[in-house]
């Protein structure tokens, strides 16, 4: 319901037919010049069109890296385009890639690789070319590298990994007596530990111990389910371990039901609850780090608590992919691969956003070890739990959306874990039965 303002008729222009035609031609000329790749026509610089999904702090850091990249690459006509993460980006990505002429390199969540047309829209990365720039399986976290590999072919160049971690408010936790002698949050090894720590923190805040995004419970759910050793098979008949899933969901329910966590806290409210001291702990993605740092908050970070074993946390990876081209263009591919390698090698800047660089020479550097609190959860990169593979799973895809809509009721107490699990299973089976559009 938006109405446009219609301007009234202005004074009649004193413009002859010739003048009008001449003006029109001139205007058309300008438009045409603006459309065409004028730079590439007029100069012999190699054009490199990059599409990305980074806004906010990540966007600013990427722009910083791109400024440095441009300085070192005067021969490249670099043209980045930024779109909003989620559906706005992924729909443009698929349509742009289907056209085969839109971009030379694009960012992606590795969890969406399968859902966005591997082989049909996304072309394999020439690993020999990449190796010339020093990027091989040996210089990247191997678990992430393997995630980018499908049927023996590398389809993505991983820039980072990002995952759900634990944030803790230092002054609050100190007062609650849950910091160890080094001033770090004590290790949480089982359910009792978690409830004890949360209860102690709650005493100090007076409201809640921990906060997590209750409208997006997929991340903590998948982390806990994986810690329990659960598997999810998204082919044919849905394969899910009911007991383990129920245990994970019941933990989320208890946290809210016992008043240790809010019954409702959405994406925007979760960091606000943590920042305002309403809760002393937060289970959230590492990307909240810059916001909290800018707010001048005294906080620490560590991996997602290993309540049922290892400190496994749900996560994903930003990576670069190359489109399938209508007409082969080796120069463009070479420039794209060189660009990706450059970004990986300079990803210490990227680490400022809380993401763990995938390129190990960076994460093993002294510079990275000095980054606080990033260095405290560096090893979580090796344990990152990617989403199960299907065309409908992964970042901002339907399975996550369904889990969010269904599991939120477990936190509010509207549904039991059993009902929520039934609904989730139905939704997942539905997606499995849907003919794949890819």
């Amino acid at each position: 319901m938006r109405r446009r303002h219609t301007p009234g008729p202005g004074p009649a222009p004193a413009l002859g037919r010739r003048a009008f035609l001449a003006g029109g031609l001139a205007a058309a000329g300008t438009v045409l010049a603006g459309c065409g790749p004028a730079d590439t026509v007029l100069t012999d610089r190699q054009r490199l069109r990059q599409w990305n999904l980074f806004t906010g702090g990540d966007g600013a850091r990427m722009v910083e890296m791109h400024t440095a990249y441009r300085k070192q690459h005067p021969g490249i006509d670099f043209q980045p385009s930024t779109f909003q993460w989620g559906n706005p980006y992924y729909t443009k990505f698929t349509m742009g890639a289907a056209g085969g002429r839109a971009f030379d390199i694009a960012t992606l969540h590795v969890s969406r690789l399968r859902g966005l047309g591997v082989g049909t829209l996304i072309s394999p990365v020439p690993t020999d070319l990449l190796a010339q720039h020093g990027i091989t399986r040996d210089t990247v976290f191997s678990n992430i590298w393997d995630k980018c590999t499908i049927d023996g072919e590398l389809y993505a160049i991983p820039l980072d990994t990002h995952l759900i971690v634990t944030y803790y408010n230092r002054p609050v936790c100190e007062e609650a007596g849950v910091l160890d002698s080094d001033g770090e949050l004590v290790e949480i090894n089982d359910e009792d530990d978690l409830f004890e720590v949360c209860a102690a923190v709650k005493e100090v805040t007076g409201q809640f111990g921990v906060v997590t995004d209750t409208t997006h419970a997929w991340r903590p759910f998948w982390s806990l389910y994986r810690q329990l050793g659960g598997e999810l098979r998204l082919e044919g008949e849905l394969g899910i371990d009911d007991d383990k899933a129920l245990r994970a969901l019941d933990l989320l329910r208890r946290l809210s039901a016992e008043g240790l966590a809010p019954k409702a806290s959405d994406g925007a409210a979760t960091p606000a609850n943590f920042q305002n001291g309403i809760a002393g702990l937060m289970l959230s993605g590492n990307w909240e780090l810059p916001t909290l740092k800018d707010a001048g908050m005294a906080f620490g970070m560590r991996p997602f608590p290993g309540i049922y074993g290892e400190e496994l946390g749900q996560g994903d990876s930003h990576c670069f992919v190359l489109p399938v081209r209508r007409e082969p263009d080796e120069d463009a591919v070479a420039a794209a691969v060189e660009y990706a390698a450059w970004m990986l090698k300079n990803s210490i800047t990227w680490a400022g956003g809380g993401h763990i660089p995938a390129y190990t020479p960076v994460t093993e550097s002294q510079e990275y070890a000095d980054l606080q609190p990033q260095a405290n959860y560096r090893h979580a990169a090796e344990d990152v739990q990617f989403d199960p593979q299907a065309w409908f799973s992964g970042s901002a895809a339907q399975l996550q959306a369904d889990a969010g809509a269904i599991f939120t009721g477990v936190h509010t107490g509207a549904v039991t874990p059993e009902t929520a699990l039934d609904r989730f299973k139905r939704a997942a089976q539905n997606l499995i039965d849907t003919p794949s559009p890819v």
Partner: protein
Amino acid sequence: MTLHANTAETPAAAPAPRSSSPPPARGTARRSAAGLWFVLPFTVLFAAFLVWPLIAGLWASFTDRSLAKEESSFVGLANWIEMFGDPAVWQSLWVTLLFTLFTTPPLVAIALAMALLTHRATARIGWFLRFSYFAPFLMPVAVVTLIWEWMYQPGFGMINGLLATVGIPGVSWLTDENTVLLAIAITTVWWTVGFNYLLYLAALQGIPRYVYEAAALDGAGAWRRFTSITLPLLRRTTALIVLLQMVASLKLFDQAYLMTNGSGGPNYAARPIIGYVFETGFTGLRIGYASAISYLFFAVIIIVSVLQLRLFSRKEDAA
């Protein structure tokens, strides 16, 4: 200006002289050719951006067209059959209808009340009322939803804070499946009531004062004048507002999508049918299936509009 000219007769009277005068024999062909040229730009745009997409969408609903594939194949009625058996389609259609039921009456009644208030207000305060009633409508949806999301926050939001002062316990507005649609409806009323208000205000200003004077001389009280003069003379405006409002409410998407972060709300309680079309078409990449659902919704809107038009025109005849 007479009362009649204001309501019924102008449109009916307009074509009369044209049909009674004999058509000019000469120059008609030439003039109509010139007329075609004037109509052409619009016709081209209309055909390219409305007629063609309509046909292309209908065709797509019989194919397995996907955003991620270039080629698609004809699948006959498969999408349509799947749609009629898909509970999410009916559930989201129900959410849309429920939202329309929630929002249309207040959006008409509150707009009328505000227009009456402003109409009676003195010039000194009138500009302020007009400004403050209409201002929310000028805000972009992203701003509106951002403001209301913070106000609805459980724990530290303004609305729960106000409720707490009168002893009402906190409500999880956007995270409870029983309140989420209501919360979005309240936001929508606040946001869009200004447009209906403007239509009503203009219509009120078109009712001549002497009608009221005459009624007052005949001894009609304020309520009587309202029910017997104001409301009947506003009937056409009301019909227009109700029609526009129902169509606008049926088109619910932006605010629901934004206020539930695209999830459709707890247990999909705030996922309108356009939200489901978006989900299948853009998140799920299934353009073919999404087209079929769009056409179902298209049919629903047409049925509702025709019913509504009939209802009002019958009243007109009776009166």
